[in-house]
Each structure stands twice: as C-alpha cells, then as structure tokens.
C-alpha cells in the first residue's frame, strides 16, 4: 500500500509544441495511501493515459511518479509492485482458481504454507470457496474478474490495485454486486485503489475521491457530493447527473445575471474577468416550476416513475427541471432557481460568488 504522488505529470505522444499536443496536460496530485480513487471521463479524455503512467506502461514525457516518496517514473510495471484488473478477464485457463491466486506468490518464491494460508483467505473473501478447485476457464466473466482482482490482493505488500474499466463485460445485475463487494474489500484491506471508468454510477459508488477528466485535463477532484453541488467546470455539470446541469449563457451585472430580457438574482456579487463568456449552471434538481420567475416553455415531459423530468426552454435556451412525483406541470409555468443550486461560470470554469 502506498501514497501515490503525481509530481507535475504531463504526457504528449509526439513532440509537444502547443498545449493541445498533450494527451495529458500537466497535473500535480497526491493520492493518499489507502484511498479509493476513480478516474472518470469520456473516451479519449486521457484517463487511460494517466492509468498507464501510474502502472508503468508509459513513461510520462514530463514530471515524476512517486510511490511513498520513492521515484518509480522509469520502472516497468513488474518493478512497481502494483496489481491491475483489465477490461477483459485475464485468467490462466489451465489452472484452477486456487492455482491462479497462488501464481503471483509462487513466482515470487513465497513459502508454500504461507501461500496456502493467504490463498485460502482471499478465496473466502471473494466468495469463491465453492469454486476453489475448479478450472478457471470454466467460470463466468464476473468470477474471472474476481480472480484477476484476487491475484492482486494475495500480495500483501501490493502498492496499489488499478482497475481499467473492469465491469465492461459483466452482466448488469452482477455489476452492482461486484461493485459493492469491491467497496467492502477496500474497507477491509485498505489497498490504494485507482479505478478508471466512463460510467458515473460506477465512479460515484466506488470512490471516495473522483477525478474528473476532460480533454486531457483534470477538471475537478472531489467527493461525489462536491461534483454534484459545486461542479468546478461546466463539463462536470454535464457529465455527472442525469440529466446534466443546465447551462444558461448570461451577462453578469453585480448580483444580477441577465438572460435575454429577464433578470436572475444571484446569491451574491459575481465578477468575471473582462471578455469572459459567462453562464449560470443550475442542476435540474434546483429548478422550481411555479408562478414566479422566468417564463418557461414546456417541450416534453418524461415520466421516469419516481419523478418527472420536464424539458423546456427559457429565453430560447434548453433547460430541464425535475418535478417530484405527483406534482403537476403548471399550465403557464415560470421557472426560478433555488439559491444553493446556482453556480456561476466564466469561460466554463466556476467562479466564487461573494456573499
């Protein structure tokens, strides 16, 4: 188990002349020992590049990687003492489940009784006792993924366990089960875990800290609650939540935001740099449809059971609102925003509102 320091890491696959040549733009983070981190973002956002830098498949063109203060930047994966669970289950077909789990220890010359005890413990933890002596090839995909994970966990001293979209080939009803089991294992063993995914549910349920990436850049690092309540970038607002955050282009005027001919009162004064494109970000959960506020034109209502999602426009801008179950959509609705849900953005980045 180790603390992972990403010391001013950046990576470009070719020669880097401008900022846009970087697949991974410079970042500096310290990930604490025993933490559960999720790298979340769409395809091509650089999350796999970052994971490969941590695992050692890739040497960053800039910066250093430290495990517990020790520079591992130029070490290959096998010298870094990490474990990895891949997108597709990797098991040794000809071995039994127990042999699979013993393999990493056997290769490292661990004494037989120690291996046996350790393997037995991990098999019990993973709930594979009944399958221990079955051939790994005969198992289902979710069990195979557990074996991949187990091969990392048998090594007591493993610095970090990396997951590269490990639930891709797992049946939906088993995803939940495997995810919560992973969470339990993390609590119990306290390994540092890094989990790459493009699925917000996976990231938010697994991780204590979610690292949201967009176009090669880390746009926000925070708890699931931070990401929901105070998205640092409009992308985080779009990407997390269903439906995503509403973004309304506005002109800032002290404590008032002007949208077309309408005015929205802000919780405080917001000042953006000159010439910046400014916008309000309001999650559908904070949009109230009633008799006051801005004229709201209803386009479509999706009833998703527990609540209704009302799609409409305010001054020509698409806005979604969430209505609780049973609430009716007013005939001539007006929309207002709850103060705690209003975020102000300048050039897509969140700015603080002075109270």
């Amino acid at each position, binding site marked *: 188990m180790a603390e992972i320091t990403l010391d001013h890491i950046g990576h470009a696959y070719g020669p880097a002349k401008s900022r846009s040549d970087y697949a991974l733009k410079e970042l500096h983070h310290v990930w604490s020992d025993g933490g559960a981190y999720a790298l979340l973002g769409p395809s091509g956002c650089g999350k796999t590049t970052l994971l490969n830098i941590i695992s050692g*498949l890739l040497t960053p063109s800039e910066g250093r990687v430290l495990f517990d203060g020790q520079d591992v930047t130029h070490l*290959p*994966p*096998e010298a870094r003492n*990490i*474990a*990895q669970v*891949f*997108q*597709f289950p*990797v098991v*040794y*077909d*000809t*071995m039994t489940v127990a042999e699979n789990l013993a*393999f*990493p220890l056997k*290769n*490292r010359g661990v004494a037989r009784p120690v291996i046996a005890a350790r393997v037995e413990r991990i098999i019990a933890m993973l709930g594979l006792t009944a399958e221990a002596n079955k*051939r790994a*090839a*005969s198992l289902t995909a979710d069990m195979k993924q557990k074996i*991949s994970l187990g*091969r*990392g966990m048998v090594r007591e001293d493993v610095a970090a366990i990396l997951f590269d979209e490990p639930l891709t080939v797992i049946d939906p009803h088993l995803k939940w089960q495997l995810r919560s089991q992973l969470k339990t294992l993390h609590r119990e063993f306290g390994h540092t875990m890094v989990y790459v995914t493009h699925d917000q549910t996976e990231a938010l349920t697994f991780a204590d800290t979610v690292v949201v990436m967009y176009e090669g850049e880390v746009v926000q690092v925070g708890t699931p609650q931070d990401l929901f309540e105070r998205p640092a970038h409009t992308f985080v607002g779009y990407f997390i939540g269903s439906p995503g955050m509403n973004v309304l282009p506005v002109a800032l005027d002290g404590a008032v935001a002007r949208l077309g001919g309408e005015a929205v009162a802000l919780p405080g004064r917001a000042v953006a740099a000159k010439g910046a494109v400014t916008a309000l970000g309001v999650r559908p959960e904070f949009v109230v449809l009633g008799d006051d506020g801005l004229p709201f034109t209803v386009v479509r209502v999706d009833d998703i059971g527990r609540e209704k999602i009302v799609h409409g426009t305010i001054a020509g801008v698409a806005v979604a609102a969430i209505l609780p179950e049973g609430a009716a959509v007013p005939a001539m609705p007006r929309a207002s925003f709850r103060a705690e849900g209003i975020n102000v953005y300048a050039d897509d980045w969140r700015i603080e509102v002075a109270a």
Partner: protein
Amino acid sequence: MTKTENNRAWFLVLPVLLLVAMNAILPLMTVVNYSLQESFIAGFWDWVGTRHYQDVLASERFHAALIRQFAFTFIILIIEVPLGVAVALAMPKKGAWASLCLVLMALPLLIPWNVVGAIWNIFALPEIGLLGWGLNALGFDYNYTNQPISAWITVILMDVWHWTSLVVLLAYAGLQSIDEAYYRAAKIDGASRWAVFRYIQLPKMKTVLIIAFLLRFIDSFMIYTEPFVLTGGGPGNATTFLSIDLVKAAVGEFNLGIAAAMSIIYFLMTLLVCWLFFTLMTKDKEGQA
C-alpha cells in the same frame, strides 16, 4: 411446434449426393471390388474373399513399409511441431518484418511437390549439389543414392524444410490471437518467460497445434511425390513408404487385388487416427464449457 413432413425436400440434396457418389464413393467401391477379387486376364474375375487382405497383413514387405512409414511420420512430427512453435515465438509480432517473415514462411508451401523433390535431389547430389558436395568436403561420407542413412536424413530434411512453415503459420495465428492484457498481467504476476509460454501461450495455441499435428500426420502418412522424385524409394527399399509401396504393387507389378487391399487398409488406418484426434478435440471442448 409441429414440423411439416415434406420428403420432396430430399431431392434438393440429390446433386450433392450424386457429386459425392461420383468422385468419392464409386471409386472407393471400385477399390473394394478389386480387393475382393482376383483378375488374371482382363474380363475374368475370381471371388477371393478376404484372401488379399490376409496376404497383405501377413506380408513382410507391408510390415516393413508400415514400420518405415510410422518411423518417418513420428520423426517429422517431433521435429516439425516444436520447431514450428519455436519459429512462431521468435517471429516479430507486427510491422514490416512480420509481413516479410510470413511471406518467407509461405514460400516452401507454394512450391509444387515434385519440384520440392527435384530441388532436393539436385541440392543433395554428392558431386554437384551444394549440400551433398559441402558435406563431403567437410569430411562426411554422404551419398543419399546408395546409403540408407543419408537417404533418410535427406528425406526428413526435405520434409522439415517443406512443411515446418505450415506449423509456423498456424502457431503464429494462435499467438496473434492472445490479447496483450495477458502478457501484462503475467508481468505483473512476476511470471518467468517459461511460465508465460507454459500457462498462456501454449494453452491458447493448443487448438491450432492439434490441427497442425493432425494435418502433418495425415500429409506425412500419405507422402509420395517428394521421396519418389528424390530417392524413388531407395536405396533398395530404404525410403519406400506406404504410398510408394502401394504404387509399386499396383503399377509396377500390376497386382491390382493386393494393391486394392493395401489401399483399403491404409485408408482405414488414416480414418482411425483422424477419428481418434477428432474425439480428443471435441472432448476437450466439452470439458472447457
């Protein structure tokens, strides 16, 4: 659900049945016919039952050819399969070199069999062939036209040169299908080069290797053209394998009944081995499911 019975549908398979009958079943039945009768003079047939079979199975000549055949097949299999796997492992995985290697590997397979025999015939001639002359110049007493050992070495070398590529190509295809994640996982698990071969590459190549083994077995079991051109089955009968022996009996001695019985026995042996392999392969697949 009830199926509609419509026996006219059987007529649709008639063309295929006819085709198979014309080019497989009829010739085979003709051979069976020959093997059960004696024909001294054209048009006169004598029913002899299984006498030809008894004669063949009891003949020392057949035993000798059969032993030579098994020895030859065994030797080329234990050379070609491991060698093919080793070459496939050593080949680059991608890029221009991989393509070049594949083309070079495919070359021997594209040469007509009698040309292969002719190439080696000249190549190994002690007086003018590079191999034959070179070996003699190095002090080896080598002459495949009058020394059985030299003839055997030459025939085996020729077969290895001709057919190892097939094993290489099949094994290479098997290796290419292994996902990169397996190698990464093995590295992370601290596996040695040998462990990677033993637990990842070999199991993943198993199916193609069984096919390679089967193909090489069948092909080598009916080898005829190359040794016929190279040694003509000699010196003496040293390289007379089953097919050569068969042709000697049928065409050389015009002993049709005996030759037909040999054909059938020979056919049944190949069939038996194929069935064995097929059973082994399918049994393994069921075990995996």
